[in-house]
């Protein structure tokens, strides 16, 4: 009797398991195998690429919002009300000042109080939070995001996404995605001075050297190049064309060696040495201000604006905001970006088409409105309509389109260099084109707000060859801990020695000793760790 009862029970349990498994195989699961049944409140049943998302009932979504001082958040922005009227979603921003955003982000995530959407996170910044489980492995839920998936496929962004993968093969950050690599920073020259001296804009770094030398000959007591960004910008974009990573680009200690299919330690590669030697030469011959690597941006701008220097690093905005207005004291002074000079590695750029994006709190998945939230994020950040909306605003109110589809701000709305002096500002008064929402997207949209000069610059950049990306080599948790012990000291030592070499306080002849010192700091063991992580990932994930 008892055994029979037991058997019935077992059969029941087994039966329900089968039914349960069967239920799991229908479309109610995300790719991660999490049951989404009961989480579809307010979601659209059929939501696919090209659709306008609208929640079927009102939806509140909290958002960690980075507040810029020059367009501080206002609650009456058209942005907020228009989001609600288009999508039935009310965003509830937690306002965090730009100045200390990273600190507060870490705090709210660590204390378990993170809003659903954690915006403005750069690739790599999500890593500290991965092991705590506080943020969502978004790669498990891409089926809920048709627009995101569409862009990944259309623009072939899989290699970029792979760089975000952690040891478990998942990624935790929804990056901003670009259609094409966008190189903004390069050198800007006083073009009037180049013309006066009969020089043309340099096309290679060797020509940069000769041009600077000619300017120096005409102004013997000046430093022709006095740079800002603590030299990190110029080392970054010059480094690419030398086939290495330096300055801002020196994020990890490793560089992918395509020909040997392994990672090298960046700071000891011949390319890195060559880069250092080049800048050593500039500083040594008085062509580059040694203060370029230490001075504040304002000091560098002052030197450029007062005619004490003739070249400086720049992005499109710097030209318009920092240089042109302040050159007013020098009659006839003009300034322009030069196309990124080619280096020993050829006419190349290295770049990712991913940029800062959002993390999602893992608490979101517990909500019965989870699916709707993901659909909303997909529409606002990744659909063409959403991206146009957050950048340009509302057609007829903030901008107009002509027959060819070209957008134009309404005359009473100013933004960047457009409609200067208009009574309203697209960012300050309407909330559009803000850094939290408007980034990435198709090249056409990206360049729609550029000046003609900048569009022309981007055209020349589009001809450059893009270097291949490094494959992922994620550490597991134990390796991560070991690696952290080496990474920072190695990086600090490389950056510090780089400056010493360039400024001449350390002689280039001590290069071998420098390599030995790195070895003593664990370079070899570290590289073994990286390369074994790479091999393991490759075997596991192909």
């Amino acid at each position, binding site marked *: 009797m008892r055994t029979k009862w037991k058997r019935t029970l077992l059969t029941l349990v087994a039966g329900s398991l089968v039914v349960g498994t069967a239920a799991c195989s229908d479309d109610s699961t995300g790719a991660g195998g999490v049951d989404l049944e009961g989480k579809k409140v307010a979601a659209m049943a059929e939501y696919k690429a090209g659709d306008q998302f609208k929640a079927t009932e009102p939806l509140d979504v909290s958002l960690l919002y980075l*507040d*810029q*001082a*020059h367009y*501080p*958040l206002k609650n009456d922005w058209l942005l907020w009300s228009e989001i609600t009227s288009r999508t039935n979603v009310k965003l509830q*921003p*937690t*306002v*965090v*000042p*730009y*100045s*200390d955003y990273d600190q*507060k982000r870490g*705090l709210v995530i*660590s*204390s*378990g*109080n993170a809003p659903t959407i954690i915006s403005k996170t*750069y690739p790599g910044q999500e890593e500290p939070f991965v092991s705590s489980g506080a943020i969502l492995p978004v790669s498990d839920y891409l089926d809920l995001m048709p627009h995101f998936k569409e862009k990944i496929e259309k623009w072939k962004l899989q290699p970029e996404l792979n760089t975000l993968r952690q040891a478990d093969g998942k990624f935790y950050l929804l990056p901003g995605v670009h259609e094409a690599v*966008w190189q*903004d920073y390069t050198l800007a020259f006083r073009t009037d001075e180049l013309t006066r001296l009969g020089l043309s804009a340099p096309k290679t770094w060797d020509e940069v050297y000769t041009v600077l030398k000619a300017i120096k000959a005409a102004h013997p007591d000046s430093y022709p190049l006095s740079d800002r*960004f603590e030299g*990190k*910008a110029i080392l970054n974009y010059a480094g690419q064309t030398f086939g290495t990573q330096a300055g*801002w680009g020196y*994020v990890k200690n490793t560089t992918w060696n395509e020909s040997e299919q392994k990672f090298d330690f960046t700071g000891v590669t011949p390319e890195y040495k060559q880069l250092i030697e080049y800048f050593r030469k500039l500083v040594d011959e008085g062509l580059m201000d040694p203060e370029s690597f230490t001075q*504040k*941006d*304002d*000091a560098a*701008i*002052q030197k450029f*604006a*007062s005619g004490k220097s003739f070249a400086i690093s720049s*992005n499109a*905005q*710097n030209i318009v*905001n*920092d240089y042109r*207005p*302040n050159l*007013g*004291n020098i009659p006839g002074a003009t300034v322009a970006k030069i196309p990124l000079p080619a280096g020993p590695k050829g006419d190349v750029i290295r770049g990712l088409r991913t*940029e*800062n994006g959002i993390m999602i709190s893992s608490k979101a998945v517990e909500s019965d409105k989870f699916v709707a939230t993901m659909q909303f994020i997909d529409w606002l950040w990744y659909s063409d309509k959403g991206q146009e909306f957050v950048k340009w605003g509302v057609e007829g109110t903030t901008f107009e389109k002509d027959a060819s589809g070209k957008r134009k701000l309404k005359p009473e709305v100013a933004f*960047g260099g457009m409609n200067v002096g208009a009574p309203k500002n697209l960012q300050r008064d309407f909330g559009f084109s803000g*850094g939290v929402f*408007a*980034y990435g997207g198709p090249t056409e949209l990206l360049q729609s707000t550029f000046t003609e000069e900048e569009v022309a610059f981007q055209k020349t950049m589009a001809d450059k060859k893009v270097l291949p990306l490094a494959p992922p080599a994620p550490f597991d948790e134990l390796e991560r801990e070991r690696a952290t012990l080496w990474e920072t000291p190695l990086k600090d030592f490389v950056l510090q020695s780089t400056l010493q070499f360039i400024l001449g306080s350390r002689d280039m002849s001590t290069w071998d000793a420098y390599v030995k010192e790195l070895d003593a700091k664990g370079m070899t063991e570290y590289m073994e760790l990286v390369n074994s992580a790479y091999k393991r990932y490759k075997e596991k994930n192909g």
Partner: protein
Amino acid sequence: MVTTDPTQLMERLDKPAAPRRTSLDDSRGYRIFRVVNVVVLLGVVAVTLYPFVNIVAQSFSSELYIRTGQVNLFPRGFNLDTYKLVAADPVFWNSYLNTVIYTVTATAISIVLTTIYAYVLSKHRLKGRNLLIGIAVFTMFFNGGLIPNYVLVSGLGMTNTIWAVVLPNAISVFNLLVMKAFFESLPAELEEAAAIDGLNTYGILLKIVLPLSKAVLATMILFYAVANWNSWFQAFIYFDRSELFPVTVYLRNMIAGASSATAVGAVESNALAISANIKAVTMVLTVLPIVVVYPFIQRYFVSGVMLGAVKQ
């Protein structure tokens, strides 16, 4: 040595040391020392005053002159437009008002709590007094850390309320110890006499002790008010809405935001449109109240910190 007569005590403290003619006063070494002293201190004054004067000069200058580094001690391209611009910004005044409210409230709470705690600690006959001192001093060396504090304050439901900035750290242990030492230096006989005349503990504190403690109270008010006026971190941590931010957070975002637009790969680095003279004006307006109030409280301040420094 125990002095029991307060008037005698005061006299002794007030009387300047009798002028004694020693060879040291007139020695060459001493005169050289005085010259060097003056020169060095003038240097210190210049170093500390210059940045301040420079910012004031910038606030009255036009942007072009600041950007080309031509503004030093005096304004160039004098204009008041920047002041008008900043004064017309409702966000600035809202933050300013917040700062005033937080500072007044926080200072009031701190003074009351510190006075009560310090007065109790000054009574040697109190049982468990050492434990109470120990609890306070412990917090000088150890604290829970950022995240536990945040969890505590948000767990108490104080985030986005004024309490998040006025209650935590309301008692500064350093100030507490200064006040305790001051109360200890008051003659016990005064309070005994008051007790005989029928005052209870609270009456003694309010009617006898506090009126005699104006100097230390003024000092404490100054300490707390300056600290609260300048503080930004708690507000930054606990407030999620910009209309609650004090002016220090506003200022910090304006300055740090404009100079650190270069986070790695910050491709859309449009965070640089705030001009140097707006920054200067905001700084001047922010420090102004404290600078104006300082001279008036200063006489209490000098005597106040010294109080309790010497124990008989």
